């Protein structure tokens, strides 16, 4: 058993897992903000997908990966705006809107890929991000080198975003507003908080983070875009939030766990361990379910998924 562990739990494995967790952390940190304002956003996957495509296309056409990131963030904020307008201003059903956003994103990204880049099967490469140029001494550190110092900037942004969101949530007035709006919008409104505005901003922020997350998928490493590239990672990010009981630290931990599961799956396949590689990927979902059942949904914001009508009695 110990021998098995030493084959699996290598520095390379942990470094990879952190890399897998990065888009999840980014998307989950955006998601946790909008979920806490009471908006049930299942459209994260669509946002990530558009983010991945926009980052790739933007980087390809401008020749600058930073422009790609910018374009991804703006595109995803537009999607967030669409989500906000339809669910907050038009008070449409939040699940239905998310279904539409995910479907639309899949169609748009895939169609644009073909019309902008032709139907050639050769994967096109765009400029992308490479590892940060840490001093060689840091990179060569045993264990810590491959895990922490051979990563792209997105990994650090992701890791940093967790305490920042936590700090905003629990140490600032903004955080108080966000939590109040998600728990008891009527009371928040009475206290002078503009519920619609907070929710709009939260969805725009979730969009921006979805854009970053998509960029982390498409332009760090492979530097290309393929159809349905997110492969449901947006829903995994959603699961991370549920797993983390709507707490930024919990959601970050959840993302790390899903990242480890993905790393494990890859490791099992490459090392050839006689275990179905699907088992480690299934595990975090099952654990999330079990946690939901055992701990109940007490952490769910009270106004989650409930549309708010400002002037109803």
């Amino acid at each position, binding site marked *: 058993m110990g021998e098995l562990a030493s084959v699996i739990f290598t520095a390379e494995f942990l470094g990879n897992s952190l890399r897998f967790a990065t888009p999840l952390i980014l998307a989950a940190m955006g998601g946790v903000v909008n979920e806490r304002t009471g908006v*049930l956003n*299942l459209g994260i996957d669509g946002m990530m997908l558009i983010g991945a495509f926009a980052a790739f296309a933007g980087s390809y056409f401008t020749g600058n990966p930073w422009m790609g990131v910018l374009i991804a963030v703006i595109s995803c904020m537009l999607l967030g705006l669409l989500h906000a307008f*339809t669910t907050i201003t*038009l*008070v*449409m*059903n*939040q*699940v*239905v*809107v998310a*279904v*539409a*956003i*995910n*479907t*639309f994103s*899949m*169609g*748009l990204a*895939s*169609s644009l890929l*073909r*019309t902008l880049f032709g139907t050639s099967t050769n994967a096109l490469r765009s400029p992308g991000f490479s590892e940060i140029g840490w001093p060689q001494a840091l990179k060569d550190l045993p264990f810590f080198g491959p895990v922490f110092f051979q990563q792209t900037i997105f990994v650090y942004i992701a890791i940093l975003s967790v305490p920042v969101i936590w700090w905003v949530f629990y140490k600032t007035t903004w955080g108080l507003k966000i939590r109040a709006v998600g728990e008891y919008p009527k009371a928040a409104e009475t206290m002078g908080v503009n519920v619609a505005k907070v929710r709009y901003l939260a969805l725009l922020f979730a969009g921006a983070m979805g854009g970053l997350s998509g960029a982390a998928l498409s332009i760090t490493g492979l530097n290309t875009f393929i*159809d349905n590239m997110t492969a*449901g990672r947006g*829903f*995994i990010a*959603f*699961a991370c939030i*549920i797993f983390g009981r709507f707490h930024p630290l919990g959601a970050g931990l959840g993302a790390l766990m899903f990242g480890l599961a993905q790393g494990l799956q890859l490791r099992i396949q490459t090392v050839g361990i006689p275990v*179905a590689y*699907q*088992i480690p*990927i*299934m595990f975090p*979902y*099952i654990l*999330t*379910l079990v946690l*939901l*059942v055992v701990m*109940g*949904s007490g952490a*769910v914001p009270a106004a*989650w*998924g*409930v*549309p708010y*009508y*400002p*002037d*109803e*009695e």
Partner: protein
Amino acid sequence: MGDNNKKSLGFASRIQWGSIITPIIGILLGLLVGAIFIWSQGVNPFVAYYYLLEGSILSWASLSGSLVKTVPLALTGLAVLFSYKSEIFNVGAEGQLYLGAIGATIIGINFPGLPMVLHIGLAIAFAGILGAAFAFIPGYLKAYKGINEIVVTMLMNYVALYFLSMIVQGPLKEPDSFFPRSLPMVPSATLPKMFGSHLHVGVLLVIALAVFLAWFFKRTTTGFKMVAAGYNPNALHYAGVNVKYLLTKVMVVSGFIAGTAGAIEIMGVHGRLIENFSVGIGYDAIAVALLANLNPIGTLLSAFFFGALKTGANSMQISTGIPVSFVYMVQAMVILFVVASNEMPRIIKIINKRRLVKKNG
């Protein structure tokens, strides 16, 4: 109706003509948005849509192809509709469909020599039971523990997805095959084809189910209770109905229907279990049920619309170069427009109210 305000889903009961007009307007607006995309690609939208029509309904070959695609969409659409009538959002039709496909395969590759009717019936029943068992979990958790069914079904879809992948690469894998797929079904478990085309008898089953459900919701007490359970669970509770038990049952039946959809797709189209046979049918089903305004007969029509759109898009791509995936944009727009127009009366009321509030300070 103070209660009405809290419901964003309460568009089940609307006047009859509206439920026909709004989907048509939604479809037209969706196609208009699609036309703009086509036009932006330098293709004449009329020409593109002609090819779409030609490839989906203008010949028997294309029409039967559209109908084959319609069957699983309609069945899962009915499954989603069934639970949504009670305001339970079964986003798990996709996973239940996988379980059904696995169940049907287990029966379908074994027991050669059974009479066809019995074999097919058994396979469908077992598929339905697995789908129902899978749906029982979110149903029970929703009704008795108050855990959001959307979250649970969403998570379970992934469990089902990887479970299917594991089964098809493991225990059910065809020995010596390079591809991860099961053995082919024995002939007595494959659905007979009709009219010399790929159209299988599953289409008759779907029509029968839709007609039955239309009757069920209109004419039976249980059907009425289900709709009432979604509309006002408290009132129903005081009327002496065990709402929790009812809601669990609703979810189980919904899962059963989704499970049979998996069986019929495997037995009618693929003939064996393969990975990725569904390509999101269970998610498209949500759009199908919504476009139909939760009307069972309408579900047949809206499933046909989506099925035809997908089939026709193939020929449109060949003739005009507009990618097939463009239909997803049309589909999304149709959902948004239909739901928005269904909600229009309420939205206008809200906006007017907001104006009044602003005026009066």
